């Protein structure tokens, strides 16, 4: 009981906050719209087996969800930005992810099988990228979201070289 894990050294790009906010906002609006449409359908159909008290209060569902989604859109990206950290040493890829629940992950570089960077359309718009490090176990695979695109590419290239030097994937 003498030690504990420190946080990894680097934060992800500041632009990730905007990207996460926009992403959450878009999906929240969509889900709220779908919920609203469903409720509208149920209310206007007014089936006899749907109890009246439910019909009267049905509008609460999308409204409550919208409230929750709003809070989440504002809070989660900022919180996530505070939590998300990463560090790549010569031997280990160390990440911390999550917001409410957190995950600390250590992946030894020598056991890495593949490294790849991906860019979705949203990420491209914000010049960000996701770095994925895979080992023989799905549980030993690490993902760093919201990295600056150039940074991600550079790190993945360095890692690829390093893997070629020390790789032994233990399968």
């Amino acid at each position, binding site marked *: *009981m*003498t*030690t*504990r*894990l*420190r*946080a*990894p*050294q*680097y*934060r992800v*790009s*500041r632009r990730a906050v905007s990207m996460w906010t926009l992403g959450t906002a878009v999906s929240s609006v969509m889900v709220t719209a779908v919920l609203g449409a469903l409720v509208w359908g149920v209310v206007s159909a007014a089936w006899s087996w749907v109890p009246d008290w439910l019909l009267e209060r049905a509008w609460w569902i999308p409204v409550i969800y919208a409230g929750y989604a709003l809070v989440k859109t504002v809070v989660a990206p900022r919180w996530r930005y*505070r939590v998300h*950290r990463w*560090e*790549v*040493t*010569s*031997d*280990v890829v*160390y990440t911390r992810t*999550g917001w*409410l*629940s*957190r*995950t*600390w*992950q*250590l*992946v*030894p570089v020598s*056991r890495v*099988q593949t490294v790849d960077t991906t860019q979705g359309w949203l990420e491209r718009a914000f010049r960000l990228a996701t770095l994925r490090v895979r*080992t*023989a*176990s*799905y*549980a*030993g695979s*690490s993902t760093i979201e919201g990295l*600056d695109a*150039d*940074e991600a590419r*550079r*790190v993945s290239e*360095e890692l690829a*070289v*390093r893997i070629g*030097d*020390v790789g032994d*994937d*233990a*399968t």
Partner: protein
Amino acid sequence: MSDREEPEPASGTAEDPPYRCEPDVGSGAREQVPAPESVNRLSPRSMVTAPVKTLKGFIVPIGVALVLGNFNPWVLGGAAAALIGMIATGLFTYLTFRYQVGTQHLEIRQGLISRSRRTIPLERVRGVDITSTLLHRLLGLAVVKVEAAAGGDRDEEGTLDAVTATEAERLRRALLYRRALLRGEVTAPERPEGEPRHATEGESAPAPASAVTGGAPGSGGPETVYFVMPPSWYLYALLSIAYLVTPFAALAAVMGLVGQVVSEAGVTEEALEWLVVHETSLVLWGSVAILATLLLLMPVFAVVSYGVAHWGFTLWRRDGSLVAERGLFTRRSVTLEYRRIRGYELLDSPLERMRGAVRLRAVVTGLGDTATRAMLLPIGARDRVARVIERALEPFRGRLVPHPRAALGRRLIRAVGPFAALAVLGWASGFPVVAGVLAFLALLGVPLGVDRYRSLGHGFDGRRVSVRSGSLRREQAVVGSDAIIGWAWSQSPFQRRSGLANLELAVGAGGGSYTAIDAGFQESVDFAGTITPEMVRPFLVAPHTPDDEPAPDRSRSTEGENGRGSR
């Protein structure tokens, strides 16, 4: 153990590529690797098994079509055509199928018009499984499955369905032996003829048992039998719920069939109604009798079906592999290389624990369908299983550290909470009976939660790591510390309050990971640090330093510690 180290030929230079094209055997470089075998065919008798196998898949649709079509000539003709087609396919397969064990590859060719040709590098062969169904065995045949890592993370299989049983065994030995040679794990015998060359018989020409990992094929090498199923162990079927409910599953199927027949035969609902109304007692007693018989027969069915699946379970070591063989009608043998065994799992249910029984499974890299194929022993007495582990594997000798007290509360909440909440909800909305049932379930959750807490633990004995969890299906995994390819801690807000975390060990074998649930966070960090110091130590700090010290948005420059070691 380095596995690419070839015994270097005198003339060879260090830059010799590890792979070589097939035909250049005579160059003196590969003196020990026997020359390629002649091209082989499947057994002619496979012309019988292949159509039967296809037929098994189609017998129901064909039967249904015949019945529904009232055996009219069109349907009858169609069925006959299908049957002829199957036989023709079997014949065609036999005529066009070729396989050859080369110096570097196993090559399987098939087809005339659309040719397929599969080449499996011998070095990448992971295992050779031999299975045979009852029909195969009546004809003296067996199916050989060659499993190989195909580069990347895909697996490939080559299936030879079917060759003679002796050829199957010879092929297995030959493939594993050649692979061992290619990997430089054994030295070849003086005479390359040490290996039986042709398909006729497998046990000819005993080769001298050789260097590192085991014997050459032919002689069979030293075989050590670790376990032969004692008769009393068949009774352990009674502890297995899956086998106990078999008769009910069968009954459901029969009922479905009866229902279908009844409706097909034009028995109307009125007739059934009449039966129920006028012969109530008959129907009642009839069903009671059937149910009672079933209940009585349940254990018998269980033991019989279990016996059929596990008949003569044997575990032995041969040529650096563990071989498990079992089955009465379909005899299946699974060969697990020691090189790929990373550890083992002990599984038990509360019922099995009460009788001191346990199941043993291997943790193996690159093995699909682990539930059945990695099974090392049937359900059996714990102390006997421990003795087998002692001899056949390396046992975990450490002690499991129990998890903090706070974990008990969490286990209880998990086990009781959902049912209790539903019970309250049920009560509030006016369903007292439902609420009562749910409350009872919630009450049952108390011993369950306590037991789940008691089974939690993790430990390290200097070489092996062990993690245990679960109650209804308790699982203790033991893996070598060098098999661990990553650590992950996850912590929910609730766990953070009580200083707990789930520690997940990533392992490139078996299920991929094992989790120590609700371990003390700091304690588990120390635990990981003891096992793989080089992986964890760099990220440790004294407990009370502030966490969020300056953490810059990483600048573009290439300084920093990463990438230092490249090249």
